């Protein structure tokens, strides 16, 4: 065994395997990169959508919520919240936080202006149009 399969051979499998599969991954990623703008309608990334995304990131919304399943599991999915609740509910909901209901999970109060709320909703609307291979299974997220 020891003479048949040497350490140098094991090392070569490691290096060869790593380089081979990394090359495949890079090729696939190039293709993915070309497909993403079509699948998520990147042409609709308006100034409002971009600003809405900045607000979501800089307020750490995924510290509680998920976006397309990524983030924390403390609060509902945001990728399809636009479909589930619609724009007016979302704005109103953010404005009245926190609810202060004893024992219920609390969302902090974010002091967004009306313009900011509109941008936020524009981003959530953009999110809801991404082709995510039919995830989540239903509107509840």
């Amino acid at each position: 065994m020891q003479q048949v399969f040497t350490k140098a051979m094991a090392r070569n499998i490691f290096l060869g395997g790593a380089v081979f599969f990394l090359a495949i991954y890079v090729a696939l990623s190039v293709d993915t990169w070309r497909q993403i703008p079509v699948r998520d309608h990147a042409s609709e990334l308006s100034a409002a959508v971009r600003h809405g995304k900045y607000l979501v990131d800089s307020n750490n919304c995924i510290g509680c919520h998920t976006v397309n399943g990524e983030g924390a599991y403390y609060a509902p999915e945001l990728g399809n919240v636009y479909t589930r609740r619609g724009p007016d509910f979302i704005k109103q909901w953010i404005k009245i936080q926190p609810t202060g209901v004893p024992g219920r999970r609390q969302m902090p109060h974010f002091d967004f202006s009306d313009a900011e709320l509109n941008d936020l909703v524009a981003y959530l609307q953009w999110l809801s149009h991404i082709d995510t291979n039919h995830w989540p299974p239903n509107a509840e997220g």
Partner: protein
Amino acid sequence: MNFRSQLVAKPYFVAALALFLGQILFGLIAGFQYVDGTFLFPAIPFSVSRMVHTNLLIVWLLMAFMGAAYFIVPEEAQTELYSPRLALATFWVFLVAGALTILAYLLVPYSDLAAATGNAMLPTMGRGYLEQPLPTKVGIVLVALSLLFNISMTLFKGRRTSLNVILVGALWGLALLFLPAFYFPEDTVKASYGWWWVVHGWVEGDWELILSALLGFILIKMTGVDREIVEKWMYVIIAMTLISGIIGIGHHYYYIGAPEYWIWLGSVFSAIEPIPFIMLIVFSIRMLLKRRRENPNQAAMLWALGTPIVAFLGAGLWGAMITLAPVQYYAHGSNFTAAHGHLAFFGAYAMVSLAIISYAMPLLRGRVANGIAAQRWEMSGFWIMVISMLAIALALSGAGIVTAFSQRMGDHPLSFMDTQAQEQVFFWLRELAGVGFLAGLLAYLVSFFVPGEAGYDAAVKRALS
């Protein structure tokens, strides 16, 4: 311990354990907020307690890895560390920067922190695990560069063992894979695709190389088995890690907006990701059976054997359960993922850190091994922590399964919050198990304060008296 400069590892290990304790305390806060949503609100909202919990995890693991590097690289290279003073200065920079970041999380609203640290100029904040403000991220790169410079120079001037080359190479990989943290495109799908370069690249790729190197080192030292055999095993294991894990990243791409071919590519390759973990178990057991000497540090042996087993359960088994696309369709973004995350992070990276600390700390404190009493405390801590973490994983899996059935299947799915209310019992069980984990960690920490040493010298002294 053969070289004086290895002593610089000690503050790294001590700080790692202190930060570990902090991580668990904030985990308990976040866990309790699952059962009582108003707990500590608005002083510490869930997003903050969770962020402190996960960021402390990253910082203490990095502390432990760096300490391990400063301990192992000189020993393997058979020469003193290139610059112990640089290593010590780097330690203080990292500790102070880490502490300031955590304090900022706790004291400043996140958006204010973003505004104050130039996030608008180069947005990097607001992604899981990578929440750090820009100055902290730059600091992490500088600390990594200092470590890499120091250990690479040590490697060059000394003996170049395969183990050392793998360890130093993997630490270079760790630093390089952090760089995508500075790339945060405005296209959310591209952002998430690139986020996994860091997160998957670390925990399902590069860190497994570090894990193999640390475990390989401990096994060589403790069993006296020929290093050619150990290093051959290591190469085969890390080859399987990358062969399965590189395309295995596809299991994160099913439902985030990436093309459909990732569904079968990710499923096929991630299905073989448990193999390197099974090989790690076989490797550890075989090396221990082949041992040429009895090491008085039984606790370190327990960690070295426990690490691959719990890593396999968490990363291999729990990961495999949700990795196939049709299953993940229902489990994605649920607490089943959190169950996998907890057991995998603990089994693979927390436990290997505790294993190297268990092996190295007695040596750094000038003894071969701790006394029997201290080792009993440590081994009790091992069992309580392992069993508690298994219970946490089971409880969170229960919650995830309820989400799959109640919220995501059937004609009348429940809303998110109604589903969470159904899962309350699992969140209580998780919190209870979390308290158990804290008890285990405290027992483990007590072991450092129990006096006495074991080992050849003590045995000789006893025999002569």
